[in-house]
């Protein structure tokens, strides 16, 4: 609801009531007990940013060591720990929590026209669990100065006690199980939110594409994480209790680890890029000033990528000597999983061509995203050609490929999205000229860092080597990669400097600076705790481009229809067709999520040190915390 329109006293009175009902305690206390999806989103944002910094420093150390042949910046063990931590951090502690946790949390309810997530306290819970898992991994690393040194997919038997003594691999295994619980909880929350909390009239065919992406991601997480969890549980059972899953001597099989890991690991790749697709499909229509072309096709493409992504895992195992009859299934699926992406790429391109695009910073970053995604996508197709995969897998060609996908395709839209929604979140405008400059620096840095890796990979340089000899023809490429990495770092610093400066000095942005199409632009910047003074009612996927509907909302605010100022409430709709179904009483701020998460962190900490009894005690306290959590029911009035 744009703020500039004149409101009658009764309407203003209703808004005041909403403010009273929805306000949370001020200060640190408020942040610790908050259930506001926007605040939780910001908590995720800054936490994951810290992890991004850690992962970035790790990357720079790696590149510095590889700048010249036979360098001695790092010893072998330190190098192995760094590339392992870099992978684990960037994937599990930066990209997923940043896209799902920060962007998803902040935007999904706003785009749906809801006042919060379906399970606000569960939402807070998943954040505190995520924080706990991060503390477990890095805290353990700091306390014991032991880190996993087996790579992010940490193959058996290298990951077993015999070859990886100490706690490093246990930090990895338990940290990821823990992290997975947090993601699973979040995924359930997102799916229910998207299924049930859509504004009246938002049938599935009017669901904004960003939410289709988040829906696909949530379902992927829901079904991809269990194999990983089981794999890691098997690993810990073998490491700590002497079970046999991966050792041949007792009927185990090292390949079991790989099957289970990649059954998670490939859907994971799409979990990483799908939110980027969602951000691209939000930014492009806004700046091209038109709807996405082939909307239904793009929506399905996002779901298809996630679905087919579950059937391609063995293309990470083409060189293991499995039978051809086994591998062709995965090769065929790996070929076809490309098509949903080509659909989206051409949908984006033709939407830009047939629109009147305004190439401001967010759209520039999407442009860069498309370029890098196409490069990474093309090399991705090549890995579906089994013999070529067998030649180049585990070389720098692969490193080039997945950095174009994960950094170029998944992270570039994040920067675009940070600029795009910055005015919405802070109420202030970023500095356009600097933003565009930061794009070009980041773009050049990325290309210079990752493109030569293709060549050096084809020239035979394997990945995960802490150094390399001179005279094999790898030197100059490695040097340029390192130079690029430093340029890239400069670009990133420009981005965050711009945002930090604009947060305080930027001009006031107003509710809708870009005239975006989705509902988040219909409310004030930053949005109030209750998001919308009146629950909007929509008739298209781009409600903010339907002035009559918004006018009708304003009149309903005057009449007091669906303002829901009687309590801490929001609406629920039917799953398929978004008919207004019931009014929900939403839980408010609480200590219990934090307390429960703390107990669970303790459980994992003591499992790690094999104090199983103490871990059991904390499991009990966690159970009690859950009981306390559910002691007062939403309908029950708060004691005055």
């Amino acid at each position, binding site marked *: 609801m744009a703020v500039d329109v004149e409101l009658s006293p009764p309407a203003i009175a209703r808004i005041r009531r909403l403010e009273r009902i929805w306000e949370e305690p001020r200060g640190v206390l408020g942040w610790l007990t908050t259930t506001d999806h926007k605040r939780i989103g910001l908590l995720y944002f800054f936490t994951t940013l810290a992890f991004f910094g850690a992962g970035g420093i790790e990357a720079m150390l790696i590149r510095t060591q590889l700048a010249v042949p036979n360098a001695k910046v790092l010893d072998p063990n330190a190098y192995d720990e760094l590339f392992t931590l870099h992978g684990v951090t960037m994937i599990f502690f930066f990209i997923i929590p940043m896209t799902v946790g920060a962007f998803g949390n902040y935007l999904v309810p706003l785009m749906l026209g809801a006042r919060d997530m379906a399970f606000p306290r569960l939402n807070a819970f998943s954040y505190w669990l995520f924080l706990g898992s991060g503390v477990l991994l890095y805290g353990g690393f700091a306390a014991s100065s032991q880190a996993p040194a087996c790579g992010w997919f940490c193959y058996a038997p290298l990951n077993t006690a015999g070859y990886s003594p100490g706690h490093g691999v246990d930090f990895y295994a338990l940290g990821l199980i823990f992290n997975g619980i947090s993601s699973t909880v979040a995924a359930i929350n997102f799916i229910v939110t998207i299924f049930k909390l859509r504004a009246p009239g938002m*049938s*599935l*065919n*009017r669901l904004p594409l960003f939410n289709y992406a988040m829906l696909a991601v949530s379902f992927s997480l829901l079904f991809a994480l269990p194999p990983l969890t089981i794999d890691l549980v098997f690993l810990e059972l073998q490491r700590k209790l002497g079970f046999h899953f991966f050792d041949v001597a007792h009927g185990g099989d090292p390949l079991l680890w790989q099957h289970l890991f990649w059954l998670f690991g490939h859907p994971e790749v799409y979990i990483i890029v799908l939110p980027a697709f969602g951000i691209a499909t939000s930014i492009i229509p806004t700046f091209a000033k038109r709807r996405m072309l082939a*909307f*239904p*096709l793009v*929506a*399905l493409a996002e779901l*298809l990528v996630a*679905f*087919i992504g*579950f*059937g391609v895992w*063995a293309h990470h195992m*083409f060189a293991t*000597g*499995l*039978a*051809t*009859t*086994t*591998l*062709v*299934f*995965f*090769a*065929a*699926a790996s*070929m*076809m999983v490309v*098509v*949903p992406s080509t*659909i989206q790429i051409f949908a984006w391109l033709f939407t830009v061509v047939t629109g009147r695009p305004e190439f401001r910073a967010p759209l520039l970053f999407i442009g860069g995203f498309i370029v890098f995604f196409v490069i990474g996508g093309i090399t991705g197709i090549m890995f579906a050609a*089994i013999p070529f995969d*067998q030649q180049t897998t585990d070389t720098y060609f692969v490193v080039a490929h997945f950095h174009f996908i994960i950094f170029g395709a998944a992270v570039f839209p994040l920067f675009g999205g940070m600029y795009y929604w910055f005015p919405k979140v802070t109420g202030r405008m970023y500095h356009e000229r600097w933003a565009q400059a930061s794009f070009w620096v980041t773009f050049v840095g990325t290309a210079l860092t990752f493109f030569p890796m293709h060549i050096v990979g084809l020239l035979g340089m394997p990945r995960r080597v802490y150094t390399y000899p001179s005279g094999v023809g790898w030197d100059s490429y490695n040097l340029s990669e390192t130079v690029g990495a430093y340029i890239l770092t400069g670009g990133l610093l420009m981005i965050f400097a711009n945002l930090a400066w604009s947060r305080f000095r930027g001009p006031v942005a107003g509710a809708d600076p870009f005239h975006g199409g989705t509902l988040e632009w219909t409310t004030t910047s930053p949005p109030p705790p209750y998001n919308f003074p009146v629950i909007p009612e929509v*008739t*298209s*996927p781009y409600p903010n481009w339907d002035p009559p509907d918004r006018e009708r909302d304003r009149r309903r605010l005057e009449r007091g229809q669906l303002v829901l100022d009687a309590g801490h409430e929001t609406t629920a709709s039917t799953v*398929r*067709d*978004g008919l207004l179904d019931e009014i929900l009483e939403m839980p408010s701020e609480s200590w219990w999520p934090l307390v429960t998460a703390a107990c669970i962190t303790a459980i994992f900490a003591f499992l790690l040190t094999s104090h199983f009894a103490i871990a059991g005690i904390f499991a009990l306290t966690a159970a009690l915390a859950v009981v306390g959590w559910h002691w007062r029911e939403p309908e029950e009035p708060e004691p005055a």
Partner: protein
Amino acid sequence: MRLWRPRLSAEFLQWFGLGGAALVWAAQHVIGFGATIARCGAGGARFGIDLHTWELATFTTALLFVVAAEAAAVVTVLRTRGVAYDGPPPEGRRHFFALAALVGNLLFLVVVLLSGLSTITFDPCRQA
């Protein structure tokens, strides 16, 4: 009764058109992969699996279902002709998903064909 019968069938056609092919491909994929693992594993040999027969059987059944799903999508699109993809539900939503399924099912058709036909051209357990 008369009221909900046609609605149900329209609803069924839309969802079968959207999900049928996907689920059937998934089944063929898992069975096909599992059969090769069973046939080529040290413990699987004793089950005497005739790989090519298995693959051919799963392949043909999958093919039939995928074609049926595509047909369902086509029927739904024709039934909802003239409705905008973001039109009011349920017709709008059915049109929306049917349009998408029309293309999506092609992928499953191709992947079923490629994997089903290629796997039977190789001798069962030769290493790739």
